[in-house]
């Protein structure tokens, strides 16, 4: 057998031939046109950054997936971007402060996320995303972002989709009051992430003396608090603590606004979603279409991100997976 690897590509990257490239172009122009109309301006960030600078604004899971190398001239470790959002945070904090707020920016770039040796899924992803940086975190802003993403989907011709909304601040608020060890907290988070009510109950029972009955009841409800928008009202009936209620009322406000923009039937709620726990601080959302198992859109509010680059303002954003959208439009899934 001839050696097939002699002129092959590295794992996880691919060529895009004219027909598909044309489809990608059409998706890009449709989405960026919607962004422009909403007053978002394009920025372009570099392919590589110093790893310590990039890491300030990276989700924990992404730090493990960096392509890293040493810049031969400076000896510093450089990484290919696995996410554009921290780059924009750095750009805004260092170069755009004089522009004032709010700042509405978008990007259309490729990113690189390494995968495990036995995982042959895509390493290079095409992302179109938007960032909204403002002085305050307001439900109106998150609702505007979600509505804009949904309008872009409609303009692409995708009508049958669900945007699933969660609230990381709500979960963090519950977790903060548990007084359990860091190890136990990880196990609890893992059980919530898997919606494994049985495992969660065991953990709660073992730590009942520190958790307390009220928090235990709330914690155990997290694996069940998913479904249509009435989930938020159901949660509000059970939650008494003012700080936690504020998070739920924030979600309710966002859902109401997005619903009144004509997208009520496209929203689902999952208050037990813990994806990106370290990174997000408020609303999180993901969009699922058809039989596609990975989301074509994901985003949320990360109010600590800008501050980690020295500019204490709030931000929220999302990104589309362009290849996922093209696959749906080509009816490949």
């Amino acid at each position: 057998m001839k050696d097939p690897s002699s002129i092959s590509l590295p794992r996880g990257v691919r060529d895009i031939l004219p027909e598909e490239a044309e489809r990608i172009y059409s998706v890009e122009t449709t989405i960026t046109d919607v962004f422009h109309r909403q007053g978002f301006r394009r920025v372009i960030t570099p392919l590589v950054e110093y790893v310590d600078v990039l890491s300030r604004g990276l989700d924990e899971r992404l730090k493990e997936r960096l392509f890293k190398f040493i810049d031969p001239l400076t000896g510093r470790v450089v990484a290919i971007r696995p996410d554009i959002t921290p780059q924009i945070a750095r750009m805004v904090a260092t170069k755009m402060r004089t522009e004032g707020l709010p700042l509405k920016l978008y990007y259309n770039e490729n990113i690189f996320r390494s995968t495990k040796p036995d995982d042959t899924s895509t390493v290079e992803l095409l992302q179109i995303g938007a960032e909204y940086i403002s002085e305050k975190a307001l439900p109106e802003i998150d609702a505007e972002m979600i509505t804009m993403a949904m309008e872009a989907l409609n303009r692409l011709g995708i009508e049958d989709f669900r945007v699933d909304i969660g609230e990381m601040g709500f979960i963090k608020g519950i977790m903060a009051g548990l007084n359990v060890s860091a190890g136990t907290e990880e196990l609890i988070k893992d059980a919530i992430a898997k919606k494994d009510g049985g495992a969660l109950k065991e953990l709660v029972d073992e730590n009942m003396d520190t958790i307390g009955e009220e928090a235990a009841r709330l914690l155990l409800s997290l694996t069940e608090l998913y479904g249509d928008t009435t989930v938020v009202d159901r949660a509000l009936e059970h939650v008494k603590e003012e700080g936690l209620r504020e998070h739920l009322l924030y979600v309710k406000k966002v859902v109401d606004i997005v619903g009144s923009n004509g997208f009520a039937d496209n929203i689902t709620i999952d208050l037990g979603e813990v994806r990106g726990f370290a990174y997000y601080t408020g609303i999180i959302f993901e969009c699922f279409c058809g039989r596609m198992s990975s989301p074509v859109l994901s985003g949320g509010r990360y109010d600590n991100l800008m501050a980690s680059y020295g500019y204490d303002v709030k931000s929220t954003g999302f990104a589309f997976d362009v290849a996922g959208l093209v696959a749906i439009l080509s009816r490949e899934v």
Partner: protein
Amino acid sequence: MKREDLLSIALPKGRILQEAVGLFAGMGIDIKDILEDPRRLVFELPEEGMRFMLIRTQDVPVYVEYGAVDMGIAGKDVLYEQRRDLYEPLDLGIGRCRMVVAEPEELKERDDPSGWTHIKIATKYPNIATEYFLERGIEVEIIRLYGSIELAPLFGLSERIVDLVQTGETLRKNGLVEVETVMEVTAKLVCNRASLKTKPSRIKDFIERLRGVVEG
């Protein structure tokens, strides 16, 4: 109802299947024909809005993660070994067994597990075995096998094995004894993320009906 609207469930061939059929019977879903003809791999129950497929247990998490089916049933051994991104909403309490460290009887007589620093293990579960020993500070050399693990010590491939036991009969017949329990194993219902997000009420209803049978 169109085929793509049916709730699809992957069932594992083998020892869990019979018990799973019993659970579904408890929900009023009759799929016992699935036990009759081993060559038939797909069963549709349009009146229940459901579709079942039979695959190898190791393949269940893959089908579910990629969304080829909405849900599946798989043992914790397979789930912990593969660590895929799935929801695991319900422990079904079926397919009960244990994953253990076992070694030849004559080795056990002079062996002291608390003194292990470096060991060689033959197993079908390289990830679980590696994690189990590394957590205790024991360096482990894994020899990955695909079946009949209990033969490895007999032929000198490795001194010890990590494998599933139900009654312990197979171990005994091959002159092996258990030294430690790695984990208790039962089968769980697993669910695709996108399925749960896009049809939450049907999935939740199904989970709750099944929970009723498991807990009742």
